[in-house]
């Protein structure tokens, strides 16, 4: 190799299969942190070292190190868990973390504020629930997400089975996980055999897979490295249209980085789909760029080599070619709230969990409420890709009991907030996210208030507009698929993106750069007025902006960096 590898890549390759010196670091009582190199490795184990950024400066003056703590993310393919698991995680939040649970945009849980000395206990308690955190972060395949599909129960089961199968196939295998967290003896090293699929290099970068069942696109299938769109005939899954090379992140000021919607590759029958995913992942493993992490995602591999090259490679790695894609149609990437009846007669309740934060605060006792539900609920829970929650498979006779709790704690089954709020989403950002440039989770509620007021001023009903806010351009709340999106530039300042569709199939574009909230609202006000005056019936805000030529139809990477105004 001529070009030299970035540090992160070397650390990974020389980590002795993700062991590094993590164990030694955990034993060091003089600091709450791990060595910088080890913090790169812990990601593969599902955990990030962070600190409470609200306290950073104060602590510096006190000559104390930052409040180092760990964010831990679970691997939970398809976002499904049992009541027992819910109750267990709820307990762990108190015993080992900051007493909150965070539902993520990839259908799983994040815990925040886990201190170093609590990490092993945490991991063991998670393992005791039959769960793990392996590969929830890091340069491997991430949590496999899939359509929550409440009303077609048998389809959901099958889709969920598949997400589990894919996730398991692409799970990393090294014994480091058991040694470091579960207290296993250090096994004699098996060398390459420790990672039959990944090898000691793992992937160049994170890798993401999603499964959608039309007409729903709640998982934003096009924002993933591999998107699988189920082709269903007489309520049987035949196979999948495979789209590749999706991803959201960009870096300000670097036009070589851009969000990208996955491109249609072709159709693969159901029986082959797990192998197909492994083959595609292997192509990225072998051809993805390792010399530049900013160019290491699969989307760039695809653009660098082109689709024809990819289809060839696929045939070579997989042994079969792609078949011609089948037709499909997606209508929304949001959630539908309230009760629906599945085709097996079971009831499913979708609840809005504002920014996915399950906590007890003066604003509401969400965590207690959900614990009470878990205590009586016999069915399962499903986390949606929009950070919301489904109480799934409720037998009809149980419905009333659950409704009572929902009532008592004023949980939102879509009846307590406006459609625009129901379709808003924000990433975590401050105080835990080390990359945040502006507030996001803590800012969204008031921002939606302001949006609602502005809409009202302009005579608009607070109809569904898909709003997404992130604290930086990395795109954790998939902002570039929001009809209105903000990405943080600095405290109180954001980039404003407009013009995505309502179903996750067209991105927005940069409209104005680095503006404060008043300016954002001032920009939106006239657009809302025009929308109110000339909107076609049922027309979504993003589509309106495109139809009226305020925002163009097609997208180029440049549009994500060059403001329209």
């Amino acid at each position: 190799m001529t070009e030299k590898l970035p540090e992160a890549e070397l650390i990974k390759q020389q980590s002795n299969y993700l062991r590094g010196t993590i164990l030694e670091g955990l034993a060091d009582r003089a600091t709450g942190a791990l060595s910088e190199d080890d913090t790169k490795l812990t990601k593969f184990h599902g955990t990030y070292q962070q600190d409470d950024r609200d306290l950073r400066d104060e602590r510096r003056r006190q000559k104390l190190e930052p409040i180092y703590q760990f964010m831990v993310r679970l691997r939970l393919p398809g976002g499904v868990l049992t009541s027992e698991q819910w109750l267990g995680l709820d307990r762990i939040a108190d015993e080992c973390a900051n007493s909150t649970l965070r539902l993520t945009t990839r259908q799983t849980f994040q815990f925040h504020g886990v201190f170093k000395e609590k990490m092993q206990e945490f991991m063991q308690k998670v393992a005791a629930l039959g769960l793990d955190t392996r590969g929830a972060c890091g340069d491997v395949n991430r949590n496999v997400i899939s359509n929550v599909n409440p009303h077609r129960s048998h389809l959901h089961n099958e889709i969920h089975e598949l997400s589990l199968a894919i996730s398991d196939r692409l799970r990393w295998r090294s014994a480091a996980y058991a040694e470091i967290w579960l207290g296993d003896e250090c096994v004699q090293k098996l060398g390459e055999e420790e990672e039959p699929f990944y090898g000691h290099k793992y992937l160049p970068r994170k890798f993401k897979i999603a499964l959608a069942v039309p007409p729903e696109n709640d998982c934003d299938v096009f924002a993933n490295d591999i998107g699988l769109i189920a082709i269903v005939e007489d309520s049987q899954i035949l196979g999948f249209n495979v789209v590749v090379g999706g991803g959201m992140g960009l870096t300000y000021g670097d036009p070589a980085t851009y969000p990208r919607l996955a491109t249609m590759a072709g159709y693969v029958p159901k029986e082959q789909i797990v192998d197909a995913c492994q083959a595609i992942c292997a192509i990225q493993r072998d051809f993805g760029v390792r010399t530049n992490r900013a160019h290491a995602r699969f989307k760039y591999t695809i653009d660098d080599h082109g689709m024809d090259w990819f289809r060839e490679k696929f045939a070579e790695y997989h042994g079969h070619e792609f078949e011609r894609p089948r037709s499909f149609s997606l209508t929304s990437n949001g959630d539908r709230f309230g009760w629906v009846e599945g085709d097996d007669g079971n009831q499913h309740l979708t609840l809005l969990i504002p920014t996915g934060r399950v906590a007890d605060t003066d604003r509401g006792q969400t965590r207690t409420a959900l614990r009470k539900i878990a205590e009586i609920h016999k069915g399962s829970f499903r986390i949606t890709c929009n950070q919301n929650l489904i109480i799934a498979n409720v037998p009809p006779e149980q419905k009333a009991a659950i409704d009572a709790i929902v009532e008592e704690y004023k949980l939102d089954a879509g009846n307590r907030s406006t459609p625009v709020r129901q379709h808003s989403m924000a990433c975590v950002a401050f105080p835990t996210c080390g990359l945040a440039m502006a507030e996001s989770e803590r800012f969204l509620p008031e921002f939606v208030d302001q949006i609602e007021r502005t809409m009202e001023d302009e005579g608009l009903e607070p109809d569904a507009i898909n709003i997404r806010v992130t604290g930086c351009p990395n795109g954790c709340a998939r902002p570039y698929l929001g009809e209105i999106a903000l990405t943080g530039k600095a405290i109180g300042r954001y980039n404003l993106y407009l013009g995505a569709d309502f179903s996750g199939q067209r991105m927005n574009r940069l409209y104005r750069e680095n503006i404060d909230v008043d300016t954002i609202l001032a920009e939106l006000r006239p657009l809302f007025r025009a929308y109110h005056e000339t909107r076609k019936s049922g027309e979504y805000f993003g589509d309106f902006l495109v139809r009226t030529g305020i925002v163009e139809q097609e997208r180029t990477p440049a549009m994500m960096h060059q403001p329209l105004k």
Partner: protein
Amino acid sequence: MVIDLSSSPLTEDQQQHLNSILSGLNTDQVFWLSGYLAGRCAAGIPGAQVIAAPVVSVAAQTGPELTILFGSQTGNAEGIAEQMAARAAEKGLLAKIVDMADYKPKQLKNEQFVAIVTSTQGEGDPPDNAMDFYEFLHGKKASPIKQLRYSVLGLGDSSYEHFCKTGKDFDQALAGLGASALAARADCDVDYDDLAQEWIERVLEAVALEGGVSQSATQTATAAVPQASAYHRKNPFRATILTNQVLNGRGSDKEVRHIELSLEDSGFQYKPGDSVGIYAENNPVLVAELLETLGFTEGQQVTEDGQSIPLFDALTHHREITLLTPPLMKQWAELVGSDELRALADDSTELRAWMTGRDLLDLVRQWPVPELTPQVLVNTLRKLPPRLYSISSSQASVDDEVHITVAAVRYHSHDRDREGVVSTWLADRLPEGAEVSVYIDSNKNFVLPENDAQPIIMIGPGTGVAPFRAFLQEREERDASGPNWLIFGAQHFRTDFLYQTEWLKWRRDGLLTRLDVAFSRDQETKRYVQHCLRERAAEVWAWLEKGASLYVCGDADKMAPDVNEALLDIVSEQGKMTRDKAEDYLRQLNRDKRYQRDVY
């Protein structure tokens, strides 16, 4: 004071100049000057001869020498011994100072005059450097010393149960061996200066009367080489507070402050291990409350050090109103004329129990004195002593600053919130920019090894870690190659790890070889520095065998004894020796200045 210098080689107007200067000096200044000149001539600088000359002219005579032995932990007793020597020189008496640790007790048989100046430490224990001498006098080996004429000056603090015990013990022991007193013993409280001077004069008079005549003052001179600064304990420097920063994180039960003082233009020289003395100011609110209870007014005049000042000032700046002491209680009992109080004052255990957590306000409320006058009140109270704070900076790295690390003392007792005078004054009423009166209290018994290559083990929980920050700054400046091991302890890792970022940086840079921590309240069972020591027994022993010096700083009541206990166990277990041998081992370390403690 005017000296007849007729026998001197000085010219008329040189004499006049000198006399006019001398007459303007107070006793301290004269001591200083005499020590200074003596120091200069010891250093062989011509010009200092003027005073030495007449002394030399009486060199024909001989006579017995006065030996001044000092037992001192933080340097007060040593300082007085030096003053005594200087004063002896001035009086033309032959005298020499000896550190008790360096004194061969057998010598006592050959001595004629011995003056002992000693403080009391721990719970009535001798200072470290007095241990051996103390044990000798109280042991079997001691033989009669009838010829010996002696006197003892005890330094102490009457708020401690065993007031000046070590001094009293020496007095008894010597008398027990047949020696006879030159002058009556004096027991000094924290405001010791005046009584000490008076004792020095009495003793030297007696020595002079009994024929102690000087040959040369120069022997004492080196001991009396003065501090470069014109400021000292009796003439403190007004230092500006540059930084006053809390070191504990949110939610801590502790309030420890990092305070940076400006020593600009003070001329102070300090070294790691020294302390800063800070003159106290009582909380005006408490003073006002006291005045009100007593029916006095702020303005009423009282005499302090011969000057007439308002009562309010006297109680705010000059007298201790927070701590009660047995002497005060006895006097108070007389003033009140109550047998009940007399009885209490006489029963030391009962008294201690009563005094604990009470202050003057409690006393006057419970035992009002009929027709008490402001002056009588003031006279009954002891002088407000300065508080010492271990210096947490090295002058080599902060030049004209000095840093200290102060824990605010706050507690609730007898249904009132109580405050430590100086620590809460610093915490609550002294913002950056304010000034305090300070002096440097140098400590010969807590110093870095001369040898930069020598390993050191520093044990300093809580504010006890302060001097070790100075140690590391100094060793960093000196590029000292010796390994450094710090053992720190506090309540909680996240909020109470004093100077955490600095230790971690020094560990990264390789200056701090080992860093062990014990946080008592982060787990079920309490964990303290001594537990760290025990867990690392093998390493501790290895370091000691490699010649490491041990330093212990911080709490005197529990920590220091517990650490000593742990060290004894480690030495006997790792060194495979009996407990007695282990004790000898530690004592030898102490003699070799390889086991030094600064505890309070």
